[in-house]
């Protein structure tokens, strides 16, 4: 994935479609994700938001029968071409999942493991501290780094998962409804954290929460299913515009709560 030419976008898709067997779950998505911005993907349940998000770091590879067509371009290279190793993709594009899923290990080890398997050669203690600081968790856990990650609260666990992701220094962080399992205060902390993180990372977030998308994101992709039950991006624009002057009637209905 070496390319000298400076790319315009962090990542872009061209006619990206995702199929499960004969069924097309996501059809013809063409979007460009801006660098160091937060892009939200919104839409009703079952429209393929998470499927699309997981396509970005090839997590769908583990789903049997899942097939991707079209292009997913990082630095002008199609991440689904034969020469690209999915392990390298996931090293460059980290992911935070819906339900906090720390490893059943110590807090320290949760962060160190990913770095170690990727051949990190620097000072591990420093990396752990910096990652935890980056995820706004350091002050809460600095005295119990060797304690099990399961002793943390749900919100802390999710921030630990974010720390674990930034520890391997990806370019892009994918977040799959990262706050849906958390209380409002923890949710707010995650949102604040996202604003900090976007100084260094590009963030793509799937969310069900309209206010969250409106509050926290710079760009919004609106997804909807068509008559063949295939999801697609019907509108992609600056968040401000999506929530104030959407060009598509369906988007307007959805963001104003008149959908269905």
């Amino acid at each position: 994935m070496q390319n000298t030419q400076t790319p315009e976008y962090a990542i872009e898709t061209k006619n990206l479609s995702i199929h499960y067997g004969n069924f097309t779950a996501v059809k013809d998505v063409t979007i460009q994700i801006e660098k160091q911005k937060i892009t939200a993907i919104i839409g009703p349940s079952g429209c393929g938001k998470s499927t699309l998000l997981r396509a970005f770091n090839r997590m769908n590879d583990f789903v049997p029968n899942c097939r991707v067509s079209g292009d997913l371009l990082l630095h002008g290279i199609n991440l689904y071409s034969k020469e690209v190793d999915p392990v390298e993709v996931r090293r460059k594009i980290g992911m935070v999942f819906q339900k906090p899923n720390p490893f059943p290990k110590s807090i320290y080890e949760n962060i160190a493991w990913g770095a170690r398997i990727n051949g990190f050669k620097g000072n591990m203690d420093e990396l752990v501290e910096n990652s935890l600081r980056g995820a706004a968790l350091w002050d809460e856990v600095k005295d119990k780094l060797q304690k099990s990650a399961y002793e943390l609260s749900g919100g802390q666990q999710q921030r630990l998962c974010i720390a674990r992701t930034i520890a391997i220094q990806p370019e892009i962080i994918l977040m799959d409804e990262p706050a849906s399992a958390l209380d409002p205060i923890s949710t707010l902390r995650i949102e604040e954290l996202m604003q900090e993180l976007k100084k260094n990372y590009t963030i793509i977030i799937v969310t069900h929460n309209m206010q969250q998308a409106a509050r926290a994101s710079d760009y919004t992709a609106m997804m909807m299913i068509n008559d063949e039950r295939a999801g697609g991006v019907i509108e992609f624009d600056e968040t401000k515009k999506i929530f104030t002057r959407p060009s598509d009637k369906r988007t307007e209905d959805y963001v104003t709560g008149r959908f269905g």
Partner: protein
Amino acid sequence: MNQKQDYFPEGHAFYSALRRRYLIAGVWQTIFFSALLIAIISLMALLYDVVNGAFGYIAYEYKNDPSEYTSTPISELTKEELLSILKENLSSGAYNKLNNEQPMETRSQGELYVLFLKGLLQVDTKQTWDLTDSLLRGAEIRAEAAEKYPDAQLEFRSWLTPQFLTTPMSSKAEFAGVRTAVLGSLWLVGIAIIFALPVGVGSAVYLQEYAPKNWLTAIIQTNINNLAGVPSIVYGMLGLALFVRTMESITSGAAFGITDSNGRTVLSAGLTMGILVLPLMIINAQEAIKAVPDSLRQAAYGVGATRLQTVWSHVLPNALPGILTGSILAISRTLGETAPLIVVGASTFVTIDPSSPFSKFTALPIQIYNWTTRPQSEFHAIAASAIIVLLVLLLTLNATAILLRNRFQRKY
């Protein structure tokens, strides 16, 4: 439509319907409870039967009077006294034979005492009674014994003694023990574990974590499940054909320079047992691996782990307690299986401990089977004792499994 009393019974009708529902519920509750009761009674009967046989009165005679050999009461004889009695009274041929097996001086007082009883006094068991009779009809038994066997001594004994555990097989029930059988069973378990654990866990990891979900995998999976239900005697036939016959040069040790053996060794039987428990082992390990939540795998892949790193650092460590528990439960089948051992060729009369994989062997169930088929009642008593030993071994294994599970149980 909004008059709901048209559709649901109210008042009196409701209560009479409710009474009927409770009645039916009560009948079913009684049926379920009866089922449980039958199960408990069956298990109690099993336990009673075993314990009943292992204790009780025994009437025995000495063919030769103890006073011919010593004036001290025979139960108080010391090791030195026993040694000299044996040396004086045994024929020199018999004494030398014993001495060659194990020098007499190095034997314990208990062993010498048994030799004294066996070789000189020649204990002869006249009759045995089971525990229930011994407890309920003690007076009758004493009268009966005094009448039928005037020279006999009557004694209440437990057939399950420390000596029973430590002495090898003997043709006389009074002196027979289960040491060779217990050791044989442990050898079987050991060899079965060495074979089945790595193969089983390896297969399970491949099937769960690597194998693509296609028709071939489905066929393999179905067949593993079916193999778990194949009667054990069939595995015995396989073991006979494969390990005892085809691979005889290996299983008899001929390939390693051991010449006094054929293929009917503890190694053949252990490998047969390994194959027998393999399907169960694979299924149990698969269940344990399946129980590791996918979110953990995704977390590992999400930070750029390869499949092996994910499996090695997260899936296996978290599945390990389950794998161990399942494996122990699977392997405990080895202790109880009899049919394959008969086919593979366990010996029924072995007095020498199995010392290598190429030894002849016997096992607890074989010994129990052999003893119960004898006509003399004293053999039934030691069979009952051997069953207790077998059950204790089994319960120990299962308890270990439960302890492991409780100790390492994880929450995700």
